[in-house]
């Protein structure tokens, strides 16, 4: 999309700190606009983990802590779109108690719009904008995710994996996947039975590796363990992961391009009726790329 006069005004105003226009700018980015903004080094953390582990509530704790200490905290909270209706129910905001409370907190809910990996390539553009607008702590909450969902590595420097007490036996912690990438692991709901055993199982599994990440047992509900966790987050030196990051960024950009291809629906229609093969469909899409 070309930068028009209106977009330029919105960018200028957002960079000057006008919240209303930052919000408009994010909407433009969501619809494919790529603003030209000054790049700065950002502070980013991805929060991921299965549905219901307490990711949003925990982010609410972080928001309270950081904003009360003078940080400007921005949260991009992603929830799934319906594969049937295309609609979405974005409920993360309601779990973050102080989401709407002050000038040092900005929360934006985003729907996946059925993007593979649950995160669209424009997340990185949004992070650049938020950073340029003065938000010095940026937290990305993923959709409730599983063992092999690590697209978040494309976008954030730190990865926090949140789990609950009801995670099954130790073999679950032995499996490969996101658990190997997390810089810090959190077992939330420490007030519930089984949470200590869950933390112990994760700890003992990871202790076999070279540099095991810290495992924190916390309760976002009453704040137990939160300060210690935040201390570790602030002092954590994230693993570089540069090759993985580059790979995930490329796949994400590739996915976005495929989903935005104007021929996509037509080709899907042809596949549905069986009039072309999968191989032909891929060729059709590839040849429609300029």
């Amino acid at each position, binding site marked *: 999309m070309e930068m028009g006069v209106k977009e330029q005004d919105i960018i200028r105003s957002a960079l000057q700190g006008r919240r*209303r226009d930052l*919000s*408009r700018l994010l909407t433009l980015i969501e619809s494919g606009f790529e603003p030209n903004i000054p790049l700065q080094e950002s502070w980013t953390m991805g929060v991921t983990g299965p549905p219901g582990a307490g990711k949003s509530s925990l982010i609410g704790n972080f928001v309270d802590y950081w904003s009360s200490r003078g940080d400007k905290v921005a949260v991009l909270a992603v929830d799934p779109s319906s594969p049937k*209706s295309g*609609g979405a129910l*974005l409920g993360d905001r309601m779990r973050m108690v102080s989401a*709407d409370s002050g000038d040092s907190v*900005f929360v934006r*809910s985003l729907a996946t719009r059925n993007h593979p990996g649950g995160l669209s390539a424009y997340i990185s553009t949004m992070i650049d904008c938020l950073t340029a607008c003065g938000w010095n702590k940026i937290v990305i909450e993923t959709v409730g995710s599983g063992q092999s969902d690590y697209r978040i590595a494309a976008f954030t420097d730190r990865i926090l994996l949140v789990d609950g007490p009801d995670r099954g036996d130790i073999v679950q912690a032995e499996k490969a996947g996101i658990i190997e990438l997390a810089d810090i692991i959190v077992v939330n709901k420490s007030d519930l039975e089984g949470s200590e055993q869950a933390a112990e199982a994760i700890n003992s599994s990871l202790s076999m590796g070279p540099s095991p990440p810290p495992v924190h047992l916390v309760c976002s509900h009453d704040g137990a363990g939160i300060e210690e966790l935040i201390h570790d987050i602030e002092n954590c030196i994230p693993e570089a992961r540069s090759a993985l990051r580059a790979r995930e960024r490329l796949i994400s950009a590739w996915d976005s391009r495929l989903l935005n291809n104007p021929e996509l629906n037509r080709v899907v229609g042809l596949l549905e009726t069986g009039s072309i093969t999968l191989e032909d469909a891929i060729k059709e899409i590839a040849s429609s790329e300029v």
Partner: protein
Amino acid sequence: MKVIVAKPGLDGHDRGAKVIARALRDGGHEVVYTGLRKTPNEIVRATMDEDAAALGLSTLSGAHDVLIPAICEELIKEDMGRTVVFAGGIIPASDRDALHALGVRAIFGPGTSTSEILDFLNEVSSRKKSGEAVGVGESSEWRWE
């Protein structure tokens, strides 16, 4: 459309708001639900951060004639006059004209079908596309009846 469903004031339950949020999701909208007991300022702040096209306010407590005007005025003041505001819950017929005069485009009472609310949003969407004034701060006589 991106729609916020909000619960201003001190209502103790939100069954209705959740049913609406779910129905709008199934109608293809991206719905942000705020949760219970929000102040007008918090609702306006959420509407701004989310850059929502529409705001649905559910009130059961009888405080609609204080809370809804406060929200509408603040939206206009904060440069969100193009937001479409609709309301639902327990709002007596005698109070409705005053709310419509503030720019509230629809008021849905008990017994409203969820498909009617979707019809309203579809109508809003097509009016927005053709450039007609439907926002809370835009001058228009149009209301859903």
